[in-house]
Structure formats: structure tokens, C-alpha cells
């Protein structure tokens, strides 16, 4: 038990939490306006077509109206952008989670449930429980470790349990059936149309997909270096899916960054270094004067905690 507990809360650098937090909340904002803008269009759909999901009936959540949809949109957008700054992780994180969850109930209550964002929802639920974190901070945090670990588990579950669902709903016939041919017919790209003509390729691919999904949990028993290769395979799988049937699984891809050493990704620091290098280079060529005293400190300013 304690071994499992230690694994679940294996400490990670706070800088990784800060970077993951920024990425996840920026994605929420982007999701609202770029990736799933159709959720907002449900404002104009008559309430009689709303078929609330179990949680929508249980709570019970109101039937979406133009006012409700617009209000949630305009609350969620600025709150998620503020949360991306890393400030007030609880005070901003919990409202963002609750609003996004309601946004998803609105999204999925008209006859179609998507399965691409379980990992993102887990990340949004877990991030407020992680301690405040600054970009670049090497201090390790167990609370942050748990937030990342449960997101990783959710990502792996999305694969493994998707294979389980295929066997539950499709049976072993799924492997030899025509599910990929159907997908290509409905939304295939030119690339997909081309490879679909290769005899039996789609059926072989169906075996490959189930094997890949069932093998997902192996990511947790691999050594760090090999786990990164496994994550690269995960991303490659989605690249192929997008190239053939234009399904991106974008929220899942964001959640999957929980496996990566995000603390090494420092775009602000890199931009500053580039700026200093450019300024220095220009100065050497006599086009601008060298600064006399007090050059800017290396690194990003600390993010206030809250």
C-alpha cells in the first residue's frame, strides 16, 4: 500500500508543474475558441434536442440557453488565461475545472459523447491540489507528483480501456471487421483513400491498434528513457490518425505531456537569451551602444504564489 502511495506521489520538480499548468490552462482557452468552437453553437439549438447526461440529470444541471452558454464562455475564457499564469492555483483552478466540466456536459448532451478528454479533465481536477509552483523551480513536490501521475494514469487508461470497449461492443470480430474502412469512407483524407486500397492493410491496422492500446500500461514499467520512446509512439499514433481521418485528440495530447520533462521547455528564457544575443551582436558591430550597468537578470521573474 505504502509502495503504491509513494509511486502515486513520486515528487516532481515544481517547474514541471508550473509548465504543465500553463500548458493545460492555455489549452482550455484555445479549446473554447479553436478546437471545439461548436460547443458554443449549442446556444442556438432548441432545448428539446438537449438529452442531458447522467450527471446533468443527477445534479441537476439546467437546459442550456443562449444566456447560460454565453455566460460560461465569457467566464471560462478569462479565468483559464489567468490560471495559465500560475497565480492562485486553487482560487482559479477549481472554478476553471467546474466551468469546463459544465461546458463538457453541454457539449456531450446532444447525442454524441467524445472520448478524447478524460486525461484533460483529470488534469484540471488534480492541478488545483498541486502546490503553487514557479517556472524553473527545481524544488520537488509530492502533491505536484500526484497531479501528474493521475493524469498519466488517465492517459494510459484511455488507451487500455478503449481496447476493452472494442472487445465489449465489437467483440473479436472488431479485429477483422470493416471499422477502419467505414472511418475512411466517412472522413478519410486523400492519403487515407490511397492506403485504403492496399489489400488487407486496414484489417492489419485494426490488429495493430488493439495491440498498441492493450500495451499502453507498459509505459509505467519501462525505464525513463524507454518511457519517452513509448510516449513518442503514442504521439506518432495520433499523428497517423490525424493524417488519415483528421481526428486530432488534442485534449488527450495535452494531457500526455504529463509524461514529459516540461520544466526544460522555457520559451520566455529562450526569448530573453535570444534578445540579449541579438543586442550583443548588434553592439559588437557598433550599431547600438552597450548597456553600461545592470543588465537584466537571467531567467523569468518569479510568479507570485497564491
Amino acid at each position, binding site marked *: 500500500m505504502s509502495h503504491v502511495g509513494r509511486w502515486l506521489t513520486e515528487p516532481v520538480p515544481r517547474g514541471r508543474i508550473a509548465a504543465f499548468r500553463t500548458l493545460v490552462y492555455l489549452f482550455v482557452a484555445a479549446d473554447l475558441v479553436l478546437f471545439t468552437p461548436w460547443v458554443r453553437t449549442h446556444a442556438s439549438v432548441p432545448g428539446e434536442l438537449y438529452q442531458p447526461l447522467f450527471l446533468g440529470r443527477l445534479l441537476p444541471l439546467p437546459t442550456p440557453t443562449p444566456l447560460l452558454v454565453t455566460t460560461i464562455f465569457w467566464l471560462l475564457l478569462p479565468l483559464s488565461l489567468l490560471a495559465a499564469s500560475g497565480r492562485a492555483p486553487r482560487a482559479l483552478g477549481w472554478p476553471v475545472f467546474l466551468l469546463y466540466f459544465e461546458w463538457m456536459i453541454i457539449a456531450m448532451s446532444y447525442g454524441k459523447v467524445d472520448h478524447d478528454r*478524460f486525461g484533460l479533465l483529470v488534469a484540471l481536477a488534480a492541478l488545483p491540489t498541486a502546490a503553487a509552483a514557479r517556472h524553473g523551480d527545481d524544488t520537488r513536490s509530492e502533491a505536484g507528483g500526484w497531479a501528474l501521475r493521475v493524469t498519466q494514469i488517465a492517459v494510459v487508461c484511455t488507451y487500455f480501456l*478503449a481496447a476493452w470497449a472494442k472487445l465489449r461492443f*465489437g467483440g473479436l470480430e472488431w479485429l477483422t471487421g470493416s471499422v477502419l*474502412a467505414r472511418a475512411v469512407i466517412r472522413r478519410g483524407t486523400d492519403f487515407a483513400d490511397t492506403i485504403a486500397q492496399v489489400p488487407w492493410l*486496414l484489417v492489419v491496422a485494426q490488429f495493430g491498434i488493439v495491440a498498441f492500446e492493450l500495451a499502453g500500461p507498459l509505459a509505467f514499467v519501462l525505464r525513463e528513457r524507454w518511457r519517452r520512446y513509448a510516449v513518442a509512439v503514442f504521439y506518432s499514433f495520433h499523428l497517423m490518425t490525424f493524417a488519415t481521418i483528421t481526428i486530432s485528440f488534442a485534449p488527450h495530447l495535452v494531457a500526455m505531456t504529463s509524461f514529459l520533462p516540461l520544466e526544460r521547455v522555457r520559451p520566455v528564457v529562450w526569448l530573453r537569451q535570444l534578445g540579449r544575443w541579438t543586442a550583443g551582436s548588434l553592439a559588437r558591430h557598433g550599431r547600438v551602444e552597450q548597456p553600461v550597468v545592470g543588465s537584466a537578470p537571467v531567467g523569468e521573474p518569479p510568479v507570485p504564489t497564491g
Partner: protein
Amino acid sequence: MDTPLTTAGRKIRLLVTLLCGMTLLAGTVWGRDDHFPFGPFRMYSTSSPPDAPAPDTRVEGIDTTGTVVPLDQHNTGIRRAEIEGQRDRYVADPGRLRGVADAYATRNPAASVLVEVRIVIRWHGVRNGRPTGRSTDETVARWQP
């Protein structure tokens, strides 16, 4: 320096993880889409025989000028998959398609009024898991005011 959790903090996290994991597992084994987000991950999970025709659903309307108008998420706010997800309801009660016409009118106030809305399935031929290139259309639900 590491930041350790308290014993209580660790126990709560372990408990929440187990509870959510068990709920998700139960949803996968017994649940339905209705149990989102703990329902089964059933995207592309149903199977069809290698030679079964593949359905490609579309919704279209006819306006007062006789023009056929494709009805999609851009001009109605309703996704194709949502029409398919509620297809049985539309087939049992085609009057529900009035909701699609109303959504179209709301989003396109300057457009001609729709005098018919229908759900059409184009059945594409499949042989040995490959598209044959042949298809037939079937109208499964039709509404006229």
C-alpha cells in the same frame, strides 16, 4: 528541498485515485455514454462484417426556392454525429427535425425558410474491408411543416 505530503494528504489522494479508478473501470464494464466522463471509451468500438455497407449520414433541407441546403454544424450548430446519436428518435418521431429547421433559422435569419428537412444515409459498398466506390442513398426521416 522536497515538499512532503502529510500522511492524511497522501491517504486522501490514494483513496480518490482508487475511487475514480474503480468508477472508470465499472463504467467501462457496465456503463454507457450516458455516464460521461466515466463511461466506456467506445469511439470506433462497434464492429461490422468485412462486406457490410458503410453508412455516411447527412442532413439536408429544401427551402422555398426548391434549393437543397446541406445542414451541418456550421449553419445549425448541430454536429452530424449528434444527429446520428439521436437517429432512432428522429426516425420514430420525424417531427423532431423541426428543431433542426429552427436552429437553422436562428443562425441564418436572412435565409429562405426550409419546407423540408430530411436525414439521408448514403450506404457505401465495402468488400473485404475496402471501399468499392459504389453507393446508394436512403432517406430515414423526413419532416415537412
